[in-house]
């Protein structure tokens, strides 16, 4: 079975968070949808909460430290991205936006993306469409038509979800899997493929 990598970016603030819970459900459903297409999924999760300080440093220095570099490379090198944020003041969270602020302009070009968001109220569902989708449009990602919003009332206790939310997760995951299946595997960055010439290294001394 051919393998595809799903990067999952979660901007949840608490442990456990409903944001991470939704991200996990989307990843699981996407893996199942890929399996139905004969593709195996490897899931790599980036919890932005753990990179808050790294992101603040990056904003000032202009480059990511080692820990953040790993997270950025995970996202840039994945075959697809599942991005989930809590909604605050009718938009994505500041932590979520900061990660995409420091991400290279080309990192998501052509990459299939599944968007998810959580909030206390369904009133803010359209934040996915008016705030988050334009962000990924700017980055020239290929975003699945169905975005998944989970309000407090959608969680039926524990990690069980309402039938409506479960259906929506399944539909969105199916769309993402179809997008992944129709494009070639993401090229894996090989640090040894294009080494800096020794002369250039010497010249920099």
């Amino acid at each position: 079975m051919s393998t595809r990598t799903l990067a999952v970016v979660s901007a949840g603030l608490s442990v456990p968070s409903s944001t991470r819970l939704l991200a996990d459900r989307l990843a699981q459903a996407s893996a199942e949808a890929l399996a139905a297409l004969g593709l195996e999924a490897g899931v790599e999760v980036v919890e932005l909460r753990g990179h808050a300080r790294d992101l603040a440093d990056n904003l000032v220095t202009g480059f990511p430290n080692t820990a953040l570099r790993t997270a950025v490379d995970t996202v840039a090198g994945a075959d697809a991205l599942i991005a989930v944020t809590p909604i605050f003041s009718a938009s994505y969270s500041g932590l979520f936006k900061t990660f995409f602020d420091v991400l290279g302009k080309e990192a998501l070009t052509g990459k299939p993306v599944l968007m998810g968001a959580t909030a206390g109220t369904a009133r803010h569902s359209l934040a996915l469409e008016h705030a988050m989708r334009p962000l990924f449009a700017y980055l020239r990602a290929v975003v699945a038509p169905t975005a998944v919003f989970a309000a407090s009332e959608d969680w039926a206790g524990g990690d069980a979800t309402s039938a409506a939310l479960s259906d929506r997760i399944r539909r969105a995951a199916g769309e993402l899997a179809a997008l992944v299946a129709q494009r070639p595997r993401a090229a894996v960055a090989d640090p040894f493929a294009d080494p800096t010439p020794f002369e250039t290294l010497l010249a920099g001394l």
Partner: protein
Amino acid sequence: MSIPVTDRGRREDGAPVGSFVTLVGNPRAGSRTRTVAEAAAEAVGRRIGHDGPGEVVDLAALGPHLLAPGPSAGVEVALELVAGADVLVVASPTYKASYTGLLKAFLDRLPGGALTGTTALPLLVMGDPRHALAVELHLRPVLVELGAHVPTPGLAVLEAQIPDLDEVLGRWADRVVPQVAGALGEGVRA
């Protein structure tokens, strides 16, 4: 145009109306965003007879404390200043066609409705005129959600316009100042 706020421009205790606060959402210190934002606040302040420069909350100094969870004395002071402002200029550079994550991380720490009673003036500085609508599409709804009174229009300043800042700010200020003065007047009557 200048609207002197005379009788209505005083609180019951006789103090001049309007604490003016400028919030700068650029992660780098000494940013052009800050220069433009302070000039914008001054253009509005001068037209409504507000004395003094007002306070500036520059998030460049608070970055690490804003993104990481947990309390920070500096952030608390900044949040109080912003929530207590009568007139608040909210300024950001344009990153990925919207306001910065840093600005949003600060606003995320305000409780719901924290800007009720505040007149907020959204401002984005940008290199590309094609992003001008981001002020109205992205920054305005956040301020509205926080309860602010948000006069129209918001202000998109192109980097290329910075040499002619006075003219750009003057045109904008003439349009928003009647709305700001009206909101301040209502605040005094309430």
